[in-house]
């Protein structure tokens, strides 16, 4: 086998593990070398679970040696965002309020990865409680983009995106409430999938905005993202919002190509407001789809212009309710107080960072008496309009496409003091969460500064088979094989 095992795809590593060319322990060692070589600069991980990973890789090697095959993720080193609980392994959500918290159980997605034989390398850095678009809002310091360490990796799942881009994991899980998987995937040059709302259990995912949150995979290829999706999707009795029907079967049509695909370009999200390089790569990809036999049309979805505003009322409102549980009583930071209310208010003041505080205040205001109808109630009606616009569009096309992010990776510090500018990074990704359908970002090129550009595809709820087929066609066409210069284990 040539090259560093840390740079293999999940599919390639699976072949090498089964041919005996590579052991799970050697693969983990290669990934650990990459982590050691890059973490000082990139800071993708908050916690490394060395003992757990070694145990899991030894078990995978023992299974292969005994002629058993635990499945496609056996022995594969993966990373998990730090808002999914891991039994006995510190889980902080990037927040000071959860420093030192060792959960008493595994999230369902974590349990499913373990059952599939995966090797969980560690927990990845994130914007505090998944609120942010740059991974700068972590109480433990920012994660840096491996394509240019002076720039952000996107967020909020920035650590997971960077781990996959840099070779510090072969795949990862993130969570996506307004674009937190797709946007960092775009900025880091990897594939990021947000499945249909409810298809992946959220038991053990620390809640941010419950009507929007969804867990999904990061990978270097669409096929690898499918492998991870298959491992984590499906009904879970522990999550009352988890979908009870069958998981869409995506494999049979994955390689069907662009021929006959009906593609819609969302006018409101594919014009001004996007960087010229982003727009050029977007149009090049759309033209490629047309040349490969897809029918392409432009569709206007007027509600898209208001989706961002509706989101920044709905998500903070839900966050203010969900984060009420961090009160210094059962877990996490507690400051002294004369009364329980003083104790709670002091603990929350010290435990939450500025962006989380801002959103709790915003949500509390939007839900308070006298303002509820004008803000939260109106935002919920706009959400209905977004859903209706999607339904009308998906009666005409199979997939809708937009640039994932209007810009490539921006410099660290540029938007920290300007919350509104930061929020605008999500303009293309938010409508998908409001609508509930799946979305994916696929890397399609680099801008003049050598920074990756993502192409977003959306489909109706439970339309993963069509979505992933189209994404695979885009991936084959774009033939994006560039890797960041920092993705190396050479110490230099």
């Amino acid at each position, binding site marked *: 086998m040539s090259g560093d095992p840390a740079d293999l795809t999940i599919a390639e590593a699976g072949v090498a593990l089964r041919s005996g060319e590579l052991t799970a322990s050697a693969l983990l060692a290669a990934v650990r070398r990459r982590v050691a070589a890059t973490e000082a600069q990139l800071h993708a991980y908050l916690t490394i679970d060395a003992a757990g990973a070694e145990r899991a890789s030894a078990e995978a090697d023992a299974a292969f040696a005994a002629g058993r095959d635990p499945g496609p993720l056996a022995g594969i080193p993966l990373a998990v965002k730090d808002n999914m609980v891991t039994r006995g392994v510190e889980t902080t959500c990037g927040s000071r309020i959860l420093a030192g918290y060792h959960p008493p159980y595994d999230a369902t997605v974590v349990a499913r990865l373990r059952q599939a034989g995966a090797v969980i390398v560690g927990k990845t850095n994130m914007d505090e409680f998944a609120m942010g678009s740059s991974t700068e809002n972590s109480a433990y310091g920012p994660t840096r983009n491996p394509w240019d360490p002076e720039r952000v990796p996107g967020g909020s799942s920035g650590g997971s995106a960077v781990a996959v881009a840099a070779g510090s994991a072969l795949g990862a899980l993130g969570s996506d409430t307004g674009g937190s998987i797709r946007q960092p995937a775009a900025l880091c040059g990897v594939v990021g999938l947000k499945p249909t709302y409810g298809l992946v259990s959220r038991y053990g995912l620390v809640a941010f905005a419950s009507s929007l949150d969804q867990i999904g995979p990061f990978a270097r290829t669409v096929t690898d993202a499918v492998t991870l999706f298959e491992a984590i999707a499906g009904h879970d009795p522990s999550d009352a919002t988890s979908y009870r029907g069958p998981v869409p079967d995506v494999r049979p049509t994955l390689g069907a190509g662009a021929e006959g695909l009906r593609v819609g370009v969302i006018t409101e999200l594919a014009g001004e407001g996007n960087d010229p390089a982003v727009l050029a790569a977007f149009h090049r990809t759309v033209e490629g789809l047309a040349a490969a036999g897809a029918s392409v049309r432009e569709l206007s979805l007027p509600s898209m212009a208001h989706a961002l505003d509706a989101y920044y009322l709905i998500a903070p409102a839900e966050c203010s309710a969900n984060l009420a549980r961090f009160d210094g009583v059962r877990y996490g930071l507690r400051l002294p107080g004369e009364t329980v209310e003083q104790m709670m208010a002091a603990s*929350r003041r010290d435990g939450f960072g500025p962006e989380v505080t801002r959103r709790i205040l915003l949500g509390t205001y939007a839900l308070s008496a006298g303002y509820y109808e004008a803000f939260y109630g109106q935002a919920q009606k706009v959400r209905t309009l977004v859903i209706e616009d999607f339904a009308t569009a998906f009666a005409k096309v199979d997939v809708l496409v937009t640039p994932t992010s209007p810009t490539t990776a921006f410099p660290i510090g540029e938007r920290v003091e300007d919350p509104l500018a930061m929020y605008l990074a999500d303009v293309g990704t938010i409508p998908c969460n409001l609508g509930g359908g799946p979305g994916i970002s696929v890397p399609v090129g680099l801008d003049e500064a050598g920074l990756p550009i993502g192409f977003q595809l959306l489909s109706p*709820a439970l339309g993963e088979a069509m979505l992933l087929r189209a994404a695979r066609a885009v991936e084959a066409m774009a033939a994006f094989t560039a890797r960041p210069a920092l993705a190396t284990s050479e110490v230099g």
Partner: protein
Amino acid sequence: MPVDIDIAKVARLARLALTPEEMVRYGAQLGAILEHAAQVQALATEGVPPTAHPLPMLNALRPDEVEETLDREEVLAQAPDRQGPYFRVPPFMEEEA
């Protein structure tokens, strides 16, 4: 126009012991964000029903059977303060005179 907010009241409702300086800063930032977000009010929504949840879902029911629960000691081990099998907190009611 930035929205004017009673930030002290909102902070109290949210159980956040903000300093006076923080109240000024967050108040100004929230005013600007709400000014942008208030654009949703310009949209005609007469007769549009609100959406609370993206998928049509009814109550999720399961058989009423005893299942395994979290280990009490493991849970209490994460508590900032405890007394025996309980979470311990400062007083939350005035003592009767």
